[in-house]
């Protein structure tokens, strides 16, 4: 698909068959070698059984999606063989335990690598060691020297003692040697990058973004696919001086976060769509009380409980409509893991500046995706700007918390500071926090307060850059996406280029306030605009139109739980540029080939 090295592995089996461990070992080996990767793990909402399918794509350059091809697959059960062996591309290989798994039909030129596991493991009763044997086989086929695997196994298992390390090394070696004898390697050996990289998930990145931004209070109620943020925080909190609390429900979480934020801590919480539904009332209350606090909604396939372990971009309108009334807030959808890290940092500065709640709207594809990252790109000590804070004690006799100012921003004093005692109310209030529904509901005061708050965000576009076109200016088609689809659209553009179609892309990230003018200007110059989004109803399309009036030329949408692969997008573009065979009502819905 691209020039140069580009390799995709998969490991498939049932939950409980230990797919995570070889996945982690491979990822570490790759990033230490300086290779980039992106991994997507397809799994179900059950703890044991079912079907898990982990895809890891590796390249010397940034990896933008989990790609279209499968070069090597490790089948841990018959089911994986039956479902996926046929997806391996010519020149690839299928590894399996030939004692228990019957090979399925494969494409021409695909090597079937059956392993006599019973023999190779000397009848070891630990079922998981077959995974280690297979790792040996894989690394041999990839042309990696055994020592690399040996040291990776050491790292992975050292906590379990030298015996376990030794056993695993032995098993890996058995596989490695068996492969050397029996199978044909891939020829091109695994390349090496310039310098070692690091590996993280999107949830790690969100949590670390918070830590770097100075979050001192994190709270959550577990909900897939956002729970990883809680796990990271719980593990690292004490050493980073962060207070972490799991609360009884998401309503509690949101309100606890608000209390901590009002009391001066940078405060964050994360959930998924159903949890955020429960948080919306509190989200609106933070806006009314003008409390800076950051919420994260990691989208999964809905509606309702939906498909808990599957991805979707289906909560945009929920985010836009969160809570009653008109109020000020920031909504942003990061584009990948590193962007998620940077976005959290940036949004904390904005939220403190504007004294309003913010929502980071991301999805499973990012949050549970595994990404390589250059460690230097992660700034753990970014600039922190807490906005208009009063920090010196005063006599505070004429302090007005909600002072009407031209900017709409009223200087903020944090509870505990002598001389600035005040109340933050969720009822409409005057400058001095007195409820205007009390005694007299003065309509003029009410109007002034609404307008004061609304003025705050008028400077937002001075602080946050509008999105820009990436790709050739003279493209015949412009692909518009938001949030997590940036990478896959980039890959799709490459595919299209190979077919002679010039495409560029606009990746929108800042959703509220919306860069309506800039985007209108950009899109008015485009020859043909297609919107790519991971939901049924075209939520971004309808929002784009609500803010700009722009109607576009077509749509590529997916809502089957699985993320886009590059060819899904490319197929959609070609279909819509052609005489429209599959596209219905302007919407192309790609077919999901890999059944997981």
């Amino acid at each position, binding site marked *: 698909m691209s020039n140069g090295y580009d390799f995709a592995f998969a490991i498939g089996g049932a939950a409980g068959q230990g797919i995570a461990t070889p996945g982690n070992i491979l990822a570490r080996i790759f990033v230490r070698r300086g290779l980039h990767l992106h991994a997507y793990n397809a799994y179900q909402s059950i703890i044991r059984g079912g079907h898990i399918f982990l895809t890891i794509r590796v390249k010397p350059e940034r990896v933008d999606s989990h790609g279209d091809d499968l070069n090597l697959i490790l089948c841990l059960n018959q089911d994986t063989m039956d479902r996926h062996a046929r997806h391996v591309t010519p020149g690839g290989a299928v590894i399996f335990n030939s004692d228990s798994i019957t090979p399925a039909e494969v494409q021409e030129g695909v090597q079937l690598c059956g392993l006599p596991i019973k023999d190779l493991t000397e009848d070891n009763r630990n079922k998981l060691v077959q995974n280690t044997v297979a790792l040996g086989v894989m690394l041999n086929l990839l042309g990696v020297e055994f020592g690399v695997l040996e040291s990776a196994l050491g790292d992975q298992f050292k906590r379990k003692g030298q015996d376990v390390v030794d056993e695993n090394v032995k098993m890996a070696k058995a596989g490695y040697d068996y492969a050397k004898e029996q199978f044909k390697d891939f020829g091109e050996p695994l390349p090496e990058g310039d310098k070692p990289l690091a590996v993280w998930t999107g949830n790690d990145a969100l949590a670390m973004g918070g830590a770097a931004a100075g979050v001192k209070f994190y709270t959550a109620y577990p909900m897939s696919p956002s729970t990883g943020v809680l796990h990271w925080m719980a593990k690292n909190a004490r050493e*980073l001086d962060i207070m972490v609390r799991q609360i*009884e429900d998401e309503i509690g979480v949101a*309100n606890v976060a608000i*209390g901590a934020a009002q009391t001066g801590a940078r405060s964050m919480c994360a959930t998924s769509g159903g949890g955020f539904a429960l948080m919306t*009332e509190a989200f609106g209350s933070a806006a009314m009380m003008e409390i800076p606090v950051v919420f994260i909604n990691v989208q999964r396939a809905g509606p309702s409980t939906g498909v808990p372990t599957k991805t979707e971009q289906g909560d945009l309108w929920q985010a836009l409509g969160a809570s009653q009334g008109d109020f000020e807030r920031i909504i942003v959808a990061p584009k990948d893991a590193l962007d998620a890290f940077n976005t959290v940092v940036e949004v904390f500065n904005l939220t403190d500046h504007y004294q309003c709640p913010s929502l980071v709207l991301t999805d499973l594809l990012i949050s549970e995706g595994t990404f390589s990252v250059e460690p230097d790109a992660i700034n753990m000590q970014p600039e922190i700007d807490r906005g208009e804070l009063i920090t010196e004690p005063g006599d505070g006799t004429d302090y007005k918390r909600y002072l009407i100012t031209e900017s709409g921003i009223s200087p903020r004093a944090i509870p505990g500071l002598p001389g600035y005692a005040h*109340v933050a109310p969720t009822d409409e209030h005057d400058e001095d926090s007195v409820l205007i529904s009390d005694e007299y509901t003065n309509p003029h005061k009410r109007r002034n307060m609404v307008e004061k708050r609304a003025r705050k965000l008028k400077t937002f576009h001075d602080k946050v850059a509008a999105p820009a076109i990436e790709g050739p200016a003279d493209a015949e088609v412009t692909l518009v996406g938001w949030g997590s689809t940036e990478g896959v659209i980039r890959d799709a553009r490459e595919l299209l280029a190979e077919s002679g179609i010039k495409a560029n892309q606009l990746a929108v990230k800042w959703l509220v306030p919306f860069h309506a003018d800039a985007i209108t200007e950009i899109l008015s110059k485009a020859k043909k605009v297609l919107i790519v989004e991971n939901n049924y109803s075209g939520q971004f399309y309808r929002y784009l139109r609500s803010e700009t009036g722009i109607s576009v030329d077509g749509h590529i949408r997916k809502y089957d739980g699985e993320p886009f692969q590059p060819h899904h997008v490319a197929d959609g573009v070609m279909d819509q540029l052609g005489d429209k065979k599959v596209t219905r009502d302007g919407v192309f819905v790609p077919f999901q080939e890999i059944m997981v």
Partner: protein
Amino acid sequence: MATTTAPQLKAKDFKGKVDPDWCPGCGDFGLLNSVQKALAELGRQPHEVMCISGIGCSSNFPGYLSTYGMHTLHGRSLAVATGVKFANNELTVLVTGGDGDGYGIGGNHFAHTARRNVDLTYLVMNNQIYGLTTGQQSPASRTGMKTKSTPFGNLERPVNPVTTAIMNGATFVARGFSGHGKHLVSIVKQAIEHKGFSLVDVFSPCVTFNHDNTYDFFRERIEKLEEVEHDTSDWKGACEKAMHWDDKIYTGVYFQDKDTPALNEQEPVVEHGPRALAEPALTSEQGDRILKRMM
């Protein structure tokens, strides 16, 4: 915070900017006066105290104090207050509201905040009715009571805040009566001084919508626990006394557990001072350590 050099304040120094908008005779005045007195007598300064409420007549309370405050959503005061206390352990955190706010919509936060033993002083103005919404059944309304939502009489049994607080793990549980100001001041002071979650359920008559549970109703029945034999470390006796209603109603401190530490005291990061004031940035060692683990 330099409280030692600050002047000793009077109750009136804790008066807020505006006068309460409660109906004349409303029981909530009684608690307000008692809290202002208690804060003065405990030598607190306004900036050291934060008072957090939900929504309801009673929840207008923070607006009538000169301290820091939040007037949050209906039912959410304890959650917000938990965040406040964990962000700044040095604040004296009062939580005020109504029976609907606290035992109805806020019931889950009530149970879990008690269980966690977060060091908050929760003062519930229990008028056995929804006042601000003009008189519907509350979870504290007695069986048979006629309200706008139960015109033929309430069929439900009321919550017992004292017994449920004790069983949920509250470490200080008391009952007061708006009509007995002095007693209430003493209870409120003990509640504030208690380290851990304290509930004071205050009979605070709604003179407009509750014609059953009036001042007289309580005056005729109330007996103070301090004046009878009562062991505040005995949960069984406390629950038993709390179940009286028709004949006799006890006010005073029902239960206190001085041994269980407050949750906020147990979190090691609290030792580094208020989260609010914690240096927001990480040190470079902290950052490097994190990055290393990813490689």
